[in-house]
């Protein structure tokens, strides 16, 4: 799921607050508590988050936190339950071949006056005029490129994909918000993007009718949002969902508060003033022992990995970028003890990470198919050095070991930098551990640098200064500059659509040099792993800041997966893909930290599952 900012949509700063399910690091706070020392009002379901929202305009939001704030008042098309089954909310989706998808809109969905009932034409208009219009730059625009949409009934429309995608719903690409056609029309006529972004009805969700569990009363920037119960919530009448929704939501109001300071969030949880808060791993034990609070451990698909820069602005220690050699990356993965990392830094609240999927994924390869670097026999100095020496032999430069130390052709110790987000304690600890392991097991001198995430992104990780191919009036590429051509595995490859996160071949780089980073964690998309094509679909994938050139035929495997006509075929292709990625270590994979969330005793609904929060309107106190 690639949004406007590319990196922003794919990557989250790692080592953050974690959070639970759809709710990030939520806490709950009482509303209208006008005195008294205790806060036991359970009529308002309010959560607190660490960061404020950029926009609540559903067409332009690409933030998880703001998505949760919108979701309080406006449902999207569908969701997935704890068994990973499709749950229709606004519409049901069906297909026979994975290519033509039929959307059936639930009847009885109402916008606020004067917009009337939600029909297929609202969705079709949104897709065709906004997402496919080419002028609006909506967040979902990329998802609908090349999809043909046609209204086939008052409550039904069809989408035809360029090629079959059995897991299309799982990619969340066909996930739509209901937006009234009449509201959009003036902006479409004028192609007024600025007006659409700034529309007050969209920003304040004034059109939400019966389409969400709550109605947005106020959005106080930097303060949060306040809602009151939507008595007409459409899911109350839905007979295809569990009875728990019949009286949903179970709170008179809702609130999301922005509390920037972790101590404040935890303090509020402790007093019962809030009833949900993310707990940092090092304090989970303490909160598990407290009365009135329970802590859930929720598996997540966001990883902790070490990026190694294979572009020309990486490997600053000497000539010949060793990161480009597969055995060297394997050596690094072998040098870092994953179990100790998980115990020491994540206090056991994490899973080992060997390939680009978490273990709970249906597409996780059989254990015997993937090399497990960094545990058991595949951890340690000796095995890491053997792999490093294999890499030295592949290099045209004379790297070697001088006793315990890895040295460059001039005999100087290899020195590398490792960047982490400033102020992120978990990340800093992880950086120190990695530096220590690479020092002990490979004799590399690693210096740790703290940096602001935005600065690292704009100055180091990405660049907007890249050549672009020439195009004709229809937008087709007519010629590609030489700088955008490189030889990958003996074949000539052209970068026809360079992006800030993959600006071209390895010689096109960000402004500043960097060797390794742990600033960003990435999504591994376990529901629809095909989305990982943005990372690994050949050297030209749209997100490839590290300049990774796959040494196996990734494109064919992705193509096989895309063209699969059954789930078995799909699984076969993907399992092979992930076995190869485990071997190649395009990023040095380390761990999948769990999200650890504390809840107020008695709150029913939270589950220790990736889908935690899917049925949020049905959460309640016993």
């Amino acid at each position, binding site marked *: 799921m690639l949004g406007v900012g590319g990196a922003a949509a794919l990557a989250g700063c790692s080592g953050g607050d974690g959070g639970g399910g759809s709710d990030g690091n939520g806490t709950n706070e009482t509303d209208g508590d006008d005195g008294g020392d205790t*806060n036991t009002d359970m009529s308002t379901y309010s959560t607190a988050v660490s960061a404020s929202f950029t926009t609540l305009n559903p067409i332009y939001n690409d933030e998880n936190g703001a998505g949760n704030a919108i979701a309080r008042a406006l449902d999207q098309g569908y969701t997935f339950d704890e068994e990973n089954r499709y749950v229709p909310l606004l519409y049901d989706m069906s297909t026979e071949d994975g290519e033509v998808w039929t959307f059936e809109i639930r009847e009885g969905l109402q916008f606020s006056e004067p917009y009337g009932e939600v029909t297929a034409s609202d969705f079709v208009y949104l897709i065709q005029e906004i997402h496919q219009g080419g002028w609006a730059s909506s967040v979902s625009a990329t998802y609908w490129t090349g999809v043909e949409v046609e209204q086939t009934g008052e409550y039904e429309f069809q989408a035809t994909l360029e090629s079959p995608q059995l897991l299309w719903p799982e990619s969340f690409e066909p996930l739509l918000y209901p937006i009234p056609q009449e509201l959009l029309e003036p902006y479409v006529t004028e192609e007024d993007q600025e007006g659409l972004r700034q529309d007050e009805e969209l920003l304040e969700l004034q059109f939400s009718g019966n389409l969400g569990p709550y109605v947005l009363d106020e959005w106080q920037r930097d*303060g949060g949002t306040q809602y009151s119960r939507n008595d007409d919530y459409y899911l109350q009448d839905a007979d295809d969902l569990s009875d728990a929704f019949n009286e949903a939501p179970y709170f008179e109001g809702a609130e999301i508060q922005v509390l920037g300071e972790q101590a404040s969030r935890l303090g509020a949880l402790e007093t019962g003033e809030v009833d949900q808060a993310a707990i940092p791993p090092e304090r989970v034990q303490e909160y598990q022992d407290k009365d009135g609070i329970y802590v859930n451990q929720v598996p997540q698909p966001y990883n902790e990995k070490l990026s190694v820069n294979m572009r020309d602005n990486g490997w600053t220690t000497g000539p010949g970028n060793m990161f480009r050699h597969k055995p060297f990356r394997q050596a690094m993965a072998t040098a870092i003890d994953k179990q100790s990392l998980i115990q020491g830094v994540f206090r056991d609240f994490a899973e080992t990470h060997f390939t680009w999927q978490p273990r709970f994924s249906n597409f996780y390869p059989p254990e015997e198919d993937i090399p497990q670097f960094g545990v058991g026999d595949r951890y340690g100095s000796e095995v890491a050095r053997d792999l490093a020496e294999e890499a030295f032999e592949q290099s045209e430069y004379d790297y070697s070991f001088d006793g315990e130390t890895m040295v460059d052709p001039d005999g100087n110790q290899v020195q590398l930098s490792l960047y982490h987000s400033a102020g992120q304690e978990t990340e800093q600890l992880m950086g120190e551990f990695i530096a220590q392991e690479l020092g002990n097991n490979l004799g590399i001198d690693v210096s740790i640098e703290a940096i602001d995430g935005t600065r690292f992104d704009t100055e180091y990780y990405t660049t907007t200064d890249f050549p672009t191919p020439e195009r004709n009036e229809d937008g087709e590429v007519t010629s590609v500059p030489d700088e955008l051509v490189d030889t990958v595995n003996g074949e000539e490859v052209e970068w026809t659509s360079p992006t800030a996160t993959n600006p071209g071949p390895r010689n096109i780089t960000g402004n500043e040099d960097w060797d390794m980073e742990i600033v960003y964690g990435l999504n591994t998309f376990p529901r629809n792993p095909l989305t990982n094509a943005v990372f690994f679909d050949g050297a030209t994938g749209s997100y490839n800041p590290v300049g990774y050139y796959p040494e196996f035929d990734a494109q064919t495997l992705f193509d096989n997966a895309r063209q699969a006509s059954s789930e078995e075929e799909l699984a076969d292709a993907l399992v092979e893909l992930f076995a190869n990625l485990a071997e190649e270590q395009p990023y040095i994979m380390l761990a999948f930290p769990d999200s650890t969330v504390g809840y107020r005793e008695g709150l029913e609904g939270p589950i220790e599952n990736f889908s935690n929060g899917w049925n949020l309107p049905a959460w309640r106190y016993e």
Partner: protein
Amino acid sequence: MGFGKYVGARVLWAVVVSLIITTVTFLLLAAAPNPAIREAATQAALQGGDPAAAVERERELRGLNQPLYVRYMDFIQSVYTLDWGWSESRSQPVTEALLQALYYTAQYSIPWTILTITLGPLVGVYSAANMYSWRDHVATGFAFFGYAIPNFFFGIILLLIFGVWFEWIPISYDTSVPVFSLENVRQLIMPVFVLVTGSIGATMRVSRNESAEFQNSDFMKTAKAKGVSPLRAYAYHVMRPTLVPLSTTLVGQLLALFIGSSLLVEVVFGIPGLGRLTFNALVSQDTNLVLGSTLVFTFVAVVGNLLEDLVFTVLDPRINYDDR
């Protein structure tokens, strides 16, 4: 030059200063890369479009293809007509964002400022009057403690004690309570206390040392000899001259605290005020909002300095403007 002319000249100078600052800000902005253009290029590339054409379109849309002087004139006009643009990081007009944030900042900064400028000199003079007694040591210790302990840390400790342990104050800030209500006092008492203890120290120490000088002066001895009551003597003959040099440091100190301390205190206590707005605007590269808050602080600084100069004449009649 008479007082009226002096004020006129100073106001004119204030306008010139604000124009210079605005111009420098404009030049810095013009030289910096625009994140919206970067976004447009990325978006075009992801959709299989032409990033170069998208950049050109975006530049045109934002008027960046105009000559610099035209953009400068537009900019200056917008600044002085309060058309400060749209805040991308908050999705609202910049002026509205600033007013909203100021509304919450004012609720704690007004009591904080009043308490600091009244309590500081009072405690200082009291300390001087009881110099080297245990009272002086307690007051000095209190001042140094407040000055030395970082505000955000002190805030967290107080929240822990009075919020978590005793549950006397709420942990999270509620924007929906009325300004003049007991709930608002409850939720603001700690932020104000933290800020006052942080800022009172310097004021108190300066006024203590200044007033120590005046309490042994000839006019004080005369006043005592004439039987003037100690309260009146200190209020008129010590406090007043003490405030003259103090007023030069007050404005600067309070402004610095306004920006620095209020951010951290706002973060700890969850207050959606000006400090957090400015910080978030900077971090998210929201240029319009950064500019807006810069202008607010410029305005506050220029007006603050102006007021400071005018206050001199009120406090000390010996200062006049005839020869300026």
